[in-house]
């Protein structure tokens, strides 16, 4: 790493498990409060106050879980792949741990996106599942997460497992643009993107605002869950170092 001075200082600090453990400990409470508040406000708003859709009636309220979880499942995958690459190139252990912590969260969020999508599909399309491009590519995302988790579980050697998992997640990254553009490239039942920050939203503002609250809330929740898992993993892998021994002894 020496000699590459174009990287900012925090990048090197991130490489220190202890520094990461401390900084996440400081960030956790505020993210936790933000996540809880945003999700409670968002859910109440979505269920009780957002106006019903003129075509879909009240079943469209599922969107407030479906869209944020689908967005988050893809963001989480990108983070996992980037962390994996950083771990591969710069041999930063914390990056491997971030990638490791992302996989189970991302898998469960992908399950949420698929499940809410299926439940929403029944009253709207008349079918729980169709082998359509968007749905299939999302299912592949879930399988990629499971593959990454399986690789970690199958190998005892942590650095070997991290290498294999990050190569898999890197290869799987090709799926992300496929998910994104699947609704444009193929004929599909699935409607095109409903949530964008750059263009005028395709829905009235009183439907869009609770969605924005939910999306931000989901990201906050994800940060909390990721930091919790990352801290566990830091303690586990650094268990032989002095500061973790002190931490454990002080509990």
């Amino acid at each position, binding site marked *: 790493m020496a000699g590459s001075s174009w990287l900012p200082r925090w990048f090197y600090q991130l490489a220190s498990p202890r520094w990461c453990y401390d900084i996440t400990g400081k960030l956790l409470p505020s993210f936790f409060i933000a996540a809880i508040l945003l*999700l409670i406000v968002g*859910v109440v708003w979505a*269920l*009780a*106050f*957002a*106006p*019903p859709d003129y075509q879909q*009636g*009240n*079943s469209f*309220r*599922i969107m407030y*879980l*479906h869209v944020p*979880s689908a967005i988050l499942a893809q963001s989480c995958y990108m983070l996992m792949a980037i962390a994996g690459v950083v771990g591969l190139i710069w041999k930063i252990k914390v990056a491997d741990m971030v990638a490791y912590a992302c996989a189970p*969260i991302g898998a*469960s*969020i992908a*399950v*949420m996106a698929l*499940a*809410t999508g299926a*439940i*929403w599909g*029944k*009253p709207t399309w008349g079918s729980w599942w169709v082998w359509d491009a968007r749905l299939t590519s999302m299912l592949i995302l879930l399988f990629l997460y499971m593959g990454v988790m399986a690789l970690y579980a199958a190998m005892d050697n942590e650095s070997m497992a991290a290498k294999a998992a990050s190569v898999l997640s890197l290869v799987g990254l090709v799926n992300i643009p496929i998910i994104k553009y699947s609704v444009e490239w193929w004929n599909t039942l699935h409607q095109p993107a409903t949530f964008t920050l750059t263009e005028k939203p395709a829905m009235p503002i009183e439907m869009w605002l609770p969605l924005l609250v939910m999306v931000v809330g989901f990201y906050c*929740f994800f940060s*909390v*869950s990721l930091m*919790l*898992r990352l*801290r*566990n993993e830091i*303690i*586990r892998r650094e*268990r032989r170092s002095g500061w*973790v*021994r002190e931490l*454990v*002894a002080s*509990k």
Partner: protein
Amino acid sequence: MQFETMSEFITMDGHGLYVWLSYGIGLSIIIGNLVLPLFKRKELIKSLARRLRRENNTQ
């Protein structure tokens, strides 16, 4: 408020089952993702403390 009565809120014009099932699944996945790491942390610290005590005893 879009609903006049509580029962209207629960039935959601016939879509109640779908909406509540989705929110049930969604919220349990969110809560699980927060609670499971906390449990794991407790267990981890317990097992590391046990290990530390064992090492101190053998020295």
